[in-house]
């Protein structure tokens, strides 16, 4: 099968790869670029474990072709921490509020939550629940995830107010 060259920015790094035209973005990330934070949980775009940020939008990377990300900006969970190694408030809040158990849905959940808080910096509990409804979790029952996202939002707003 003829290969197509694709170039994009992933977590701030410019990358290039030769892929089949049918290669999915999730496989470009995981198999070609060794970015294994995003996971595959269903292959049918229901579970959200593969969620990444593409050009400022949450996408399920199992349903996006790698070539569709040409020249795109991709952010995965690996790119969430600050340059100095300190964690994103959401990462910290998930740890502080027991927002994860097996950890398999967590990368997708976190990357979705960071986009949600940019879309809506002050979400109500219902808005958080609706905002992460594309991401399934089998372990936590969501209660502590919602709590974590809410705590992170508060913390980020307080920090912004202080600046």
């Amino acid at each position, binding site marked *: 099968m003829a290969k197509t060259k694709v170039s994009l920015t992933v977590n701030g790094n410019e990358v290039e790869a030769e892929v089949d035209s049918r290669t999915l973005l999730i496989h470009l990330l995981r198999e070609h670029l060794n970015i294994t934070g995003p996971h595959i949980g269903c292959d049918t775009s*229901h*579970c959200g474990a593969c969620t990444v940020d593409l050009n400022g939008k949450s996408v399920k990377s199992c349903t996006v072709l790698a070539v569709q990300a040409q020249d795109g900006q991709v952010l995965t969970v690996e790119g969430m921490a600050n340059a100095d190694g300190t964690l994103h408030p959401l990462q910290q809040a998930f740890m502080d509020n027991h927002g994860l158990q*097996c950890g398999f849905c967590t990368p997708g959940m976190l990357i979705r939550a960071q986009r949600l808080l940019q879309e809506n910096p002050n979400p109500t509990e219902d808005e958080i629940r609706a905002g992460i409804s594309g991401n399934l979790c089998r372990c936590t029952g969501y209660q502590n995830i919602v709590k974590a996202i809410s705590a992170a939002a508060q913390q980020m707003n307080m920090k912004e107010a202080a600046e």
Partner: protein
Amino acid sequence: MNEQPSRKEREAALEGIGTSRKRVEDPRFTQGKGNYVDDIKLPDMVHGDFVRSPYAHARIKKINKDAALAVPGVLAVLTADDLKPFNLHYMPTLAGDVQAVLADEKVLYQMQEVAFVVATDRYAAADGVEAVEVEYDELEPVIDPFKAMDKDAPILREDIKDAKEVGGHGPRKHPNHIWTWEAGDQKATDKAFKDADVTVKEMVSYQRCHASPMETACCVASFDKINGALTVWGTFQAPHVVRTVAALISPLPEHKIRIISPDIGGGFGNKVGVYPGYIMAIAATVVLGIPVKWVEDRIENLSATAFARDYHMAGELSATKDGKITGLRCYTLADHGAFDACVSASKFPAGLFMICTNSYDIPNAFVSVDGVYTNKTPGGVAYRCSLRVTEAIYMVERMVDILAQKLGMDPAELRMKNLIKPDQFPYTTTFGLQYDSGDYPAAFKKAMKSVGYDALRKEQAKKLEDFKAGKSRSLMGIGVCTFTEIVGAGPSRVCDIVGLVGTFDSCEVRVHPTGVAIARFGTKSQGQAHETTYAQILSTEMGIPAADIEIEEGDTDTAPYGLGTWGSRSTPVGGAACANAARKVRAKAQKIAAHVMEVSEKDLEWDIDTFRVKGAPDKAMTMKEVALAAYSNVPEGLELGLEAVEYYDPPNFTFPYGAYICVVDIDADTGETAIRSFYALDDCGTRINPMIIEGQVHGGLTEAFAIAMGQIIDYDEAGNVIGASFLDYFIPTAVETPIWTTDHTVTPCPHHPIGAKGVGESPNVGGVPAFSNAVNDAFAALGGVHTQMPHTAPRVWEHAKELGLVA
């Protein structure tokens, strides 16, 4: 001079039992650095994928590999005929049956594995799968388990059609019959029913469903031809069991097989058994000499790996007219699918179903279960419960509500009347189980008070009046469940796996010279946070801060032998091994401390993390100081070093219990249900980490909600599996999931070293009946007796329609 830390500061530094210690697993999981099986990449690794049957029952006429082998990247196509010379076309199951690794001449369920295609990458493997040509002759399938033993039913298992028994469980009545299991005193129970004022009977079905963890089953197998050594990374809840089974069915000796369970993305019972994909990846790496990865997709996971439940239970209760339960009878038909791959201890084909007398003082009981083959996927795993416990508790909890309805009593009052009293402990059930400890009435009273039970019943009565008067179309249901679980399998005298290995578990602790430690276990966390909680037990027992203790599990080359994590056994069995190993370390440390301080051992007392000389508290040695001395200055006759191993064979099961109350509002015209509130009180004995316990309860309740309200793996008449993708199979999102209220009482387990009982599965066992009782309760005053799960809107609406409540 340095200020000595206070006792409080030292205690805080330990982060021992009872503290909500933050999880040490989280930094890697929140930064994308977990190490799950599909993240593993080895040099030259290739991928395997299955050709699966489109039919439920068919003879394989011909398999043509040529077109597939011509697909670029395809390296091999393996069928049953390729495995036969090595006797690998069948594998043993945990239930004592065999299961086809690749279909041998005949397929027995839709999506059964027919051929294994190996290719350079997963896309090429999928292309290869498409190109394999299989010719079938369709046969009549058996889908309804109640027709499996009909005289003219087609014989499904030709491979064992003459076998007198399967798994050593006695004579078979029909070629599609697997076994009959019975327990209890039939004569005494029949008499109780004969003498009873009131009896009730109902067919209570617990539908086929699937645990469906977020990560599907997968493995990477790598065979080193030169050293004759096999390494398999896989989604295994019980890695040592996998190693032993692999050694028994392959020519490889057990010490040349290394099984590694890395991070596991949820298990819930689905990852206990052995699947054809594991065997095929191993067969392929042995043949090809390069590593082979197999990863199933979600549709394969839901339709071809082990299902749960599928128990059809004719429950019966007998009682006096004032509500004292005198007898329980239950005849169950168990649909096991095409092979008996049920996960059970060898002696218990129906698991621990004898827990069905539950929290009640029921003097007479008799249960009987028939297992049958059908043209469905094999399985029968315990989806977040101990073996067949959730089925048993669901049956009896529905029956208690049905009895209350017949007696005209409140379901809570009937329960309270029959609960085992605190002074009856230890309590031996009519089946001979010895319940360890509990105060059931106290827990239930606390639950009723917390939800304002009486006020809820008044509100419900008012709503019913409004409904009857045509003022409202909304109905309210209150679901009550009091339950006792049986977990921590189990005493080796009664429990073993494949008739070989007792269900003990193990811990090995090594304290290093600088006073930090590593501990390894035979269990395997799949999200339960063992790295966090085992360290808490060790820290309390040894006086070494939890943060200074590394926990390792899952590698059979390094971990002591254990039976893995399932049936809530890690805390009851692994946690006990952990405490006892730590106590051995401390006992040795005490000898060393006495020797160094030149006092007698009995002159020392333990103070959190320090040995002090009685009467001279300033003369002391911390565990950290003793650790260093252990490597240089020990008393004569004592060996150097500070480590211990414990293989713990529990004297009994543990019996966590709880009281749950659910309130649901139902729109009679649409059948839509809204869970208004859910209160869960659990007593799991000593609480190691309250934060993690609460998280386990949240998760278990959410799975219970999913099962009761929506999950079903169904089949049409032709045996096509329906609903086996996340489009159809109900996994609640954050929007549907109710908000949980958790509570607890603490009744320590008397036979466990730290008094812990286990908690991970209680919410599933107690949750499902609470939801189902709530839905049924909404219709109880309108003539409804029982409606089968799952309680989806269309089914609830049908029920309302049957009762004449909707036009």
